[in-house]
C-alpha cells in the first residue's frame, strides 16, 4: 500500500489501518515531542471553544465533565465496595 503522501505527514484520520503501527512508531516520543503534543492539543481545544468572540458554556463544561470522569475513574477502586448489589 504505497501512498502518494508519505506516512509521516498524514493526519490520523487519513492513515490507513495497515499503516497504523508505522505511523504510531514514527511519532516523536521525546519529552520535547510529548510536551509539544500537549501544547498542540491544548491550543487546539482553546482556539476552538474558548478563544472566540461569543463563547458558550461548552468551553468549560467539557473540561469539567472530563475532570469529573477522570476523578471517578481514579476513585473507582474504592467506589466498587459501595455497590448496591453483589452480582450483576
Amino acid at each position, binding site marked *: 500500500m504505497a501512498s502518494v503522501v508519505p506516512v509521516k505527514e498524514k493526519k490520523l484520520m487519513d492513515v490507513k489501518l495497515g499503516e497504523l503501527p508505522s505511523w504510531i512508531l514514527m511519532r516523536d516520543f521525546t519529552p520535547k515531542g510529548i510536551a509539544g*503534543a500537549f501544547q498542540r492539543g491544548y491550543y487546539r481545544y482553546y482556539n*476552538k471553544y474558548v478563544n472566540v468572540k461569543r463563547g458558550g458554556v*461548552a468551553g468549560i463544561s*467539557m473540561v469539567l465533565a472530563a475532570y469529573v470522569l477522570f476523578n471517578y475513574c481514579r476513585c473507582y477502586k474504592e467506589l466498587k465496595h459501595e455497590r448496591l448489589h453483589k452480582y450483576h
Partner: protein
Amino acid sequence: MGHKRLNPARSVSHPPFHLWGCGESDSPESEATRIPLSPTQVRSATPASVWTPAEQKPSLGAAQGSLNSQREPAQQRPLRLEAPSRSAPSKGSTSCQRGRSGRARLHGDRSERRARGPSLDLSSGTRGKAPRLKNAALLGPGVLQATRIFHTGQPSLAPLPPLPEHGGKVRLGLIPEEFFQFLYPKTGVTGPYVLGTGLILYFLSKEIYVITAETFSAISVIGLLVYVVKKYGASIGEFADKLNEQKIAQLEEVKQASIKQIQDAIDTEKSQQALVQKRHYLFDVQRNNIAMALELTYRERLHRVHREVKNRLDYHISVQNMMRRKEQDHMINWVEKHVVQSISAQQEKETIAKCIADLKLLAKKAQAQPVL
C-alpha cells in the same frame, strides 16, 4: 564770461532696475535723471544686484550686451554669475528626476511584491508559509479540523485573522457536534442519543457507575447549573459582549487617533513642501530690497556729486561777479576822483555863483505863483 550750464548728456544707457515677483519694469524714466559721470566708478557695484527672473531673459541679454560694450574688461566679473546659475538648476533637476524615476521603478516592484505577499490562505492544503497543525497527536473525533494559524514557525508579518464568531457547536453542553456528524451516515439522527441512553443504562445496570449519596448531590448541582445557564445565559452573554465592545471601542479610538495624527503629520509635511515651492518669494523680496538700497545709494551719491560740482561752478561764477563789481567800482571812483580833481577853484566859485543866482530866480518864481 558766461558761466557754464549743466547738461545731462545721454551717452550711456544703464540697465533698467527690475523688481521681482511684481512684473514691473521701471526703465525709461530713471534713465533721464541720471548723470553719466564716469559710470565705471559710480555703478561698478550695481549690475551685480540686477537679477532678472527666468522669464525676462531677453532684457538681461540686451542689458548685458549694452553694459559689456561700454565697460572695462576688468569689471566683467559680476555678470558671469547669471550663466552658470541658470544652467545648473535645470541640469540638476533633470538628473534628480531621472534618478527619482529610476528609484521609483525599483521600489515599485518591491512594493508590488509586498502587497501580494502575505495572502491568508485558510484552507488546510497550503504550503509551509503559515504553520499549521500537522500530525495531531490527540484524536480529534471528527472531520472538521481547526484551521487557525499558530505561531510555531517564523513570525509572519500578516495581520492576524479575526476571531471566529462562535465556538465549535456542542450538543447538551458536553458533546461536540462532530461526534453526531461522525455517526450520522450510519445511524441517522437518533443514533448518538440511542448510544448515549444505552451506555447510561449499561453503566447503571452493571454498576460501573455506583449510585451513592453523591449521586443525588450531583443531580441537584447539575440541575441547578442547567437552570441557571438556561435562564441567565443570554443576559450574561450580552453583558460580556458589551464589555468586549467597550474594549474594542477603546482600541479603535486609539487606532483612529494614531491614524489622524499621522494624517495630520502628512498634511503638515505637504503644506511645508508647498511652502518650499513659494520660497522664491523670500529671495525675490530680499533681492528687491538690496537692489533698491543700491539704487538709493547710487542716486544719493549722484546727487552729492551734482551738488559739489554746482558748488564749485557757483564759486567760480561768484568770483567772476565779484571781480567785475570791483572793477566797476574802482573805475567809477577813479573817474569821479579825476573829475573832481579837474574842477579848479575858480570854476567852482563861478559854478556856485551861478547856482545861487538860479536859485534866487526860482525862489522869485515860486513866490510869484502861489499869489496868483
